[in-house]
């Protein structure tokens, strides 16, 4: 550490370095981030980590309590619950990434258009978002499932469309604030085109709220998708999707409560992880919340 410039600026500057620094100081973000990283690792390595095949059971070993051979017991078909929960993480990550990705792409595009173009385009897009948001909670997802049918792909669409208005609103709000700032005005005065202004100035500077929303919405998507599966309207058995596992296990609640409790605990833990991360990120990234 002999370099005086380094000593004077102990941490790197710039968006990512600043962010990392603030995030690490925030215990919620660290705790949530740890859960999220572990969850993604489990999803990636589920086939290696799982002691048994998640879909094959031994009928002689039905509804066993947790033991040395089956750490989390077995379900109504003698399948290893641990292996199923681990494989369920894979399905969950797929749904989350696809649904949030879809919502982010569509929502951000609509939010940018509404905020940047303004006038009737803004009115049209935002009224459309109001209509989507008029179907409260899980109803919009249910309507989409009613029209398209059940299954993984439709769950992704249903859970994704549900979130489009959230992303559109966040991006629009951010663009509206940024649009009139001096650095954007300056870029325009220097002759930068709309395309450059949107992609070089507006979008990069909206990253903070987008990242926070993405983390929080990963939690929402999981609750919506597993809720649909729990109702029997989402991912269908024998898939080890957590909501579907829970739905099956309801019939055995009294004799073998662990079969229902474990997938629910997995959902709660991952949702909590993303909520903690999103909350922590908001505290670290949102300048208005800094005191």
């Amino acid at each position, binding site marked *: 550490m002999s370099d005086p410039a380094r000593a004077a600026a102990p941490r790197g500057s710039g968006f990512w370095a600043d962010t990392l620094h603030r995030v690490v100081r925030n215990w919620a973000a660290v705790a949530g981030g740890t859960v999220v990283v572990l969850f993604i690792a489990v999803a990636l390595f589920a086939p290696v980590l799982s002691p048994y095949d998640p879909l094959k059971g031994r009928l002689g070993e039905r509804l066993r309590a947790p033991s040395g051979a089956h750490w989390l017991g077995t379900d109504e078909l003698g399948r290893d619950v641990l292996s199923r929960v681990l494989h369920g993480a894979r399905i969950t990550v797929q749904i989350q990434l696809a649904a949030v990705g879809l919502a982010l792409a569509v929502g951000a595009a609509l939010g940018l258009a509404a905020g940047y173009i303004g006038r009737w385009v803004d009115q049209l897009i935002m009224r459309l978002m*109001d209509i989507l948001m008029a179907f*409260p*909670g*899980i109803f919009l997802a249910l309507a989409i499932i*009613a029209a398209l049918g059940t299954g993984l792909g439709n769950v992704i669409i249903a859970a994704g469309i549900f979130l489009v208005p959230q992303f559109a609103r966040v991006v629009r709000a951010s663009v509206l604030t940024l649009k009139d700032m001096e650095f954007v005005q300056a870029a325009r005065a220097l002759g930068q085109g709309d395309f450059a202004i949107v992609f070089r100035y507006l979008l990069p500077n909206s990253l903070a709220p987008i990242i926070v929303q993405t983390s929080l919405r990963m939690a929402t998507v999981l609750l919506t998708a597993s809720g649909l599966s729990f109702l029997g*309207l989402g991912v269908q058995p024998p898939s080890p999707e957590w909501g579907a596992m829970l739905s099956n296990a309801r019939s055995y609640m*009294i004799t073998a409560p662990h079969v229902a409790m474990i997938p629910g605990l997995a959902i709660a833990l991952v949702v909590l992880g993303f*909520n903690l991360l999103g909350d922590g990120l908001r505290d670290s990234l949102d300048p208005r919340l800094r005191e």
Partner: protein
Amino acid sequence: MIAYITRRLLLIAPVLLGVSIGSFALLQLVPGDPAMILAGQEATEEVLTRIRHEHGLDQPVPVQFLVYLRNAVRGNLGISIQSRQPVATLIAQRFPFTLRLAFLAILVSAALGVVAGIVAATRRNSMLDLAALLGSLVGISLPIFWLGLLMMLVFSVRLQWFPAGGSGTATHLVLPALVLGASSSAVIARMTRASMLEVLRQDYVRTARAKGLRERIVIYRHALKNAMIPILTVFGLEFGYNLGGAVLTETVFSLPGLGRLIVEGIFARDYPVVQGAMLVVATTFVLVNLLTDIAYAFFDPRIRYE
């Protein structure tokens, strides 16, 4: 105030129109011939022609929509494919139950959330504050259906305090209302805390304290009243969220509400029921939000002039 209400009413008109287009479009989005969906797969061409004529499916789509809208406004939401009863009758039987459940849940969340929020705000950065913060994060993270099963296992199966499902008496609603209210109370606790902290920084609170008023009076009479105003809007949103959560809660506790009606309707491909129920839920939600916005403007005059 009247100008504000008029403006808000004008704003919801296009939303309600869009909602009705949305629920009308549901049947159009279903792959396949709507007439066959209404009549069943094995319907003869004769029956299909009759169904098309009866339901106006031989008309252009915009005309179909106008007919749908006219009927809906008159309270005619079509006939259920499964039970052959008017959809409006089915909804009238089931919706009051869901409304009551959602309302009880809001009461639960108001009681729990506001108290936790005040405690957290007045004892900022204490262990209680941290506990409230953690508790509310856990509250919004628990899947409703899992919390429901857990409560049922503990309070119905083990302790036998409450019935495990079904409806009829008030005790049947205790667990469902608690389960449904849990996540809303988390949201309301966080809002209350933030809003209280904001208000406690204001000059008039300092003045109240400087006058020598007791802390209890400062908090409850001066601060809380003002802090509650922004929380009002959250109640509206949470009420809608509870209508959604009721779908899951009703399934867990086998309750005869609108949520079950929709889920059963989706399973049975009873599209008129699904369409009608969606329309009613969305309209209710829009109206509840309108009411909370008006209440907000009533309590906080600044809003009216925005």
